[in-house]
């Protein structure tokens, strides 16, 4: 069981210090294991540390407590082994490179030969339905197409783990839903393990095998919800009763944590704690 874990976090904490006095606890006591081929979403209010957690997994931020193992290795080793593909909210495509050449960038850094780079970029662009747009420059593409190019780039070197930080947060609702179906199709075809940070409850439920609900100050895992919706998921999934139940469950979990604020009643705080135990 453990040797199948792609991500294994135990007791992970991150404290930012601002000057001598002030410290901010961004993450506290995070335990999470993600198995091969899982699609796990991190959801929570702003400032709950979900993006920080993603960067801790990706070795872009070093934790101040606990242990991060990726494929059984320390995260720093995994980064050097190029185990990560990253997709950000902004596509971060380089304007001086056309789409094909952007997708080739990680392969260039990995020192792959030119012919292999070309073939791989073509294959990846076809996977994300951008086969005809390889010669275009990023500024000539719509936001959704740019983000698909970014996904193609992230998958180009077949990373073990795809880390996505609110990748569709800047897209309109309709494009976002289409991109969600797209990402599921890609996930099902490639079998890549995905960790996905989002603000959107429907997006988290629709995509994930598990939704990790987080709370802010300090950033903690409130509850992990299994989304046992049948696959493959489609537009019908979004209309099924079980989907609405899960959306409601995630929403209530998030709301109860908001009730934790000093102004809120004791009852809701207690209920949240009870749920925390269940989770």
């Amino acid at each position, binding site marked *: 069981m453990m040797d199948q874990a792609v991500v294994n976090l135990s007791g992970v904490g991150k404290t930012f210090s601002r000057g001598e006095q002030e410290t901010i606890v961004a993450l506290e006591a995070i335990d999470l294991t993600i198995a091969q081929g899982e699609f796990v979403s991190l959801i929570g209010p702003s400032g709950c540390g979900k993006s920080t957690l993603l960067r801790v997994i990706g070795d872009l931020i070093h934790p101040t407590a606990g242990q991060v193992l990726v494929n059984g290795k320390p995260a720093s080793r995994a980064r050097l082994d190029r185990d990560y593909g990253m997709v950000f909210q902004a596509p971060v495509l380089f304007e001086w490179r056309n789409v094909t050449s952007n997708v080739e960038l990680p392969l260039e850094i990995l020192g792959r030969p030119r012919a292999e780079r070309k073939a791989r970029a073509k294959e990846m662009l076809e996977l994300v339905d951008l086969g005809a747009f390889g010669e275009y420059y990023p500024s*000539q593409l719509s936001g959704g197409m740019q983000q698909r190019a970014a996904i193609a780039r992230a998958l180009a070197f077949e990373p073990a783990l795809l880390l996505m930080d609110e990748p569709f947060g800047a897209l309109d609702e309709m494009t976002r839903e289409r991109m969600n179906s797209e990402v599921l199709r890609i996930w099902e075809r490639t079998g890549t393990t995905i960790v996905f940070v989002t603000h959107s409850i429907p997006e988290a439920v629709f995509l994930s095998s598990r939704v990790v609900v987080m709370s802010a100050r300090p950033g903690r895992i409130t509850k992990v919800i299994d989304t046992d919706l049948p696959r493959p998921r489609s537009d019908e999934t979004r209309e099924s009763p079980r989907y609405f139940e899960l959306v409601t469950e995630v929403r209530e979990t998030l709301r109860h944590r908001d009730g934790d604020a000093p102004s809120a009643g004791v009852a809701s705080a207690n209920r949240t704690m009870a749920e925390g135990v269940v989770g």
Partner: protein
Amino acid sequence: MSAAAGDMPSAAGAAAPGRRGPSRALGGRARRLAGDLLPPLVVFVVVIVGWELVIGMLGIKSFILPKPSEILAALQANWDVGYSIWPSAQATLIEAVGGFVIGTMAGVAVAFASARWLSARNALLPLAVAAGAIPIIAFAPLMNNWFGVLSPLSKMMMAAVLVFFPVMANVTRGLTQVEPSALELLRSYAATDSEILRKVRVPNALPYFFTALKLATTLALIGAIVGEYFGGVSLVLGRIIVQSASSLKFDATWGAIVMAAIAGIVFYLIVAAVERLVIPWHASVRGDVS
């Protein structure tokens, strides 16, 4: 249904698919060039004709402001005899280009050092800003003293000092102001610092660099001509301006000014053409923004 079907290119791309696409038509490019050139050309002709007519109608004396036709006549009369404006313009342009090259190389070198080492940036930038605030004219006698009043090098150094600051400041900005997520992306590939420099920082700095170079073309000419005011060989535009003005030959003064302007425009256009070749992908080159 494929997701691509409803997900069309952005308005800019869709509105003009042939313009920036891989199969850009040469005719379209020529037509755009003509469209760019025609309005300023019309304004230029109107101003020149208006100038000619207004001077005549108001009876303004030639030594206050000569007519364009008189300036042209003075240019012809002093082309390679008399004040010898043509060889002088060449000499001044050589000084300006020399200073442009020296100042650019120094500016780029300091920019790379300050982008690479934070300590260098902290040490150099305040000094550079302070030095850049010194009026250039104050340097001219010193440069003549250090590099020889008769040597073109003293004028080149004047130009180089003026060119240095915008190049250094812009290139430093271009090398350092990279999107944080771009750096995170490269770090997630375990890219080395030199790979990040080559693949991200340098291409990111190129538009800044060319902006500075276009500015530097005129600055280089100003530096060279100001240097010439403070003494040196006589066959340069700066000396012609000083000497013709002191002997009230203002039509020749204007002739030299016109030549300086033409040299500046040609210098600028050459740099702008190189920019088009080197960074065809940039918005300022493609004409998306102006």
